[in-house]
């Protein structure tokens, strides 16, 4: 079943000089329930515009979008949605505890469950000790964590995250990736935008690439990664004499009795046959492939 549906979305902004800027051009794609979908694109590609349209902050010029089959223009469509804006800002005179109470009540979380939900969320995001501090004293990373907390606190089914790793240190980034994977394991739908390909590789099932307001590709991340394999780096431990059997392949590097070979994808089976015949010991096999960044760059260029 489809969690998010975007049909022929067009958004045209008018500048102060009266010029038209086409932010989204006939954008169409779906995100299935339980899927982690990465929305990848360079700066200014239309990622945030798409997301703002999904959460009702912007009205499309034409086309429509649905959340769980309900048009995004109706408030009830967002009852099971958690949204994290890019570079979020929250009422800085409130404490995280007060803000999350505000969020939980707005999403109609039963009153008796609110304290437990808040405690669980704040502990998960390592904000428990700061729960009574006004947010005006928070660092950018802490504000980003509050942003994630307000998304998680009401346990929605669909998570729409605009650059969720932005402003976080490596520990924070790792925490967010783990949270996304945990949500995936719980069958939740996650739709997040980023311009960092590594984030997509690590956590996404599918990736959509948007360039200049148009969707240029939607692909399965696993297939992309498999399809991008170019060859293998193989390290063998062997005596010099036994390597004569491997003559068709040249040694890339040698360190004592360890010999390193680069084997193109189509020659790997032949190479391994020769290795077995030679009696050499395989120490390490590393895959050499085009990564998502190469794929992304090739599409953008």
């Amino acid at each position, binding site marked *: 079943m489809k969690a998010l549906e975007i049909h022929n979305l067009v958004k045209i902004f008018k500048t102060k000089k009266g010029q038209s800027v086409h932010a989204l051009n006939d954008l169409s794609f779906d995100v299935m329930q339980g899927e982690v979908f990465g929305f990848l694109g360079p700066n200014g590609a239309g990622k945030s515009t798409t997301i*703002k349209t999904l959460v009702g*902050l912007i009205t499309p010029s034409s086309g429509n979008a649905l959340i769980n089959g309900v048009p995004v223009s109706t408030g009830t469509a967002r*009852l099971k*949605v958690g949204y994290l*804006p890019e570079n979020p*800002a929250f009422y800085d005179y*409130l404490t995280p505890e007060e803000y999350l109470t505000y969020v939980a009540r*707005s999403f109609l979380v039963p009153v008796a469950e609110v304290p437990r939900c808040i405690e669980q969320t704040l502990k998960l995001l390592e904000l428990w000790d700061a729960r009574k501090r006004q947010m005006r004293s928070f660092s950018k990373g802490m504000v980003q964590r509050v942003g994630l907390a307000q998304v998680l606190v009401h346990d929605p089914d669909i998570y729409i995250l605009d650059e969720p790793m932005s402003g976080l240190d490596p520990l924070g980034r790792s925490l967010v990736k783990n949270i996304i994977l945990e949500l995936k394991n719980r069958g939740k739908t996650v739709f997040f935008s980023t311009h960092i390909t590594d984030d997509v590789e690590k956590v996404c099932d599918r990736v959509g690439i948007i360039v200049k307001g148009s969707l240029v590709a939607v692909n399965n991340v696993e297939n992309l990664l498999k399809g991008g394999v170019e060859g293998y780096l193989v390290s063998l431990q062997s005596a010099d004499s036994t390597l004569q059997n491997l003559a068709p392949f040249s040694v890339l590097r040698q360190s004592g009795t360890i010999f390193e070979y680069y084997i193109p994808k189509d020659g790997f089976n032949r190479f391994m046959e020769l290795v077995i015949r030679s009696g050499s010991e395989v120490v390490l096999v590393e895959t050499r492939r085009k990564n998502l960044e190469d794929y992304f760059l090739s599409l953008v260029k």
Partner: protein
Amino acid sequence: MLNHFEITFKSIIRDRIFHGIIFSALIFLLIPSVATLSMRQATELSMTLSLSLISFILLLLSLFLGGTHLWRDIERRYTYPVLSWPSSRSAYLVGKFSGIAAFIFLVALLLGGVAVLTVLITAGIYPPERPIVWNLFFLSIFFDACKYILIVAFAFLFSSVATSFFLPVFGSICIYFVGNASQQVHDYINAPATIGISSITKNMATFVYYILPNFSAFDFKINAVYRVPIQVSGVLMTGVYFVVYLCMVISVATLLFEKREMN
């Protein structure tokens, strides 16, 4: 909507500018001393000064709270997560407005209490010739608060379309002056003694008079200070005028806010 109301209330209480404005209420302490400078009608002067001070503080609050509150939420992007929640934009706007309106009533009530003490102290030193009519005194404060709530409503209307604080703040100041002058202008134009004004101008002025707020309708200071009775029908008319005008302004504000793009 109650949620937004509560958060708005909390934000006002924690705002430092609000603390500064409320600090000016200390001027009340000076009123009995100043009133004694008048050899006669010290109580009347004390009442006038108290009501004027309340009015001034409420004016500052309405301009500050109305002019900056909604605009700041949009400017600092606090609205992004909030408006993506299931509740409607109109619930958000009305909730915020109600929070400020309730706060203005509360401040008016508290300042009214302080004003009563001030007047009683003065009346204790220089007993008035005629007894004080407290009903009129409170009615005057109540309708003064209503007037400033209308200014807050206008500030919200301007904020719903504004991209800077100039329109909500200075627009509200203009509304304050225009609202206070509209009755006088109307009376002047339609006075039999006024000559040289064409009927078209008169009709246009009358039309504008009905569109613009009329704050003189809310002014019962003279009645309170000099114990001039007010007819119940007059009070009711003012009350109805306040409710109808407020609903109209807030309705237009919500309509505009619903259409606003949060870029």
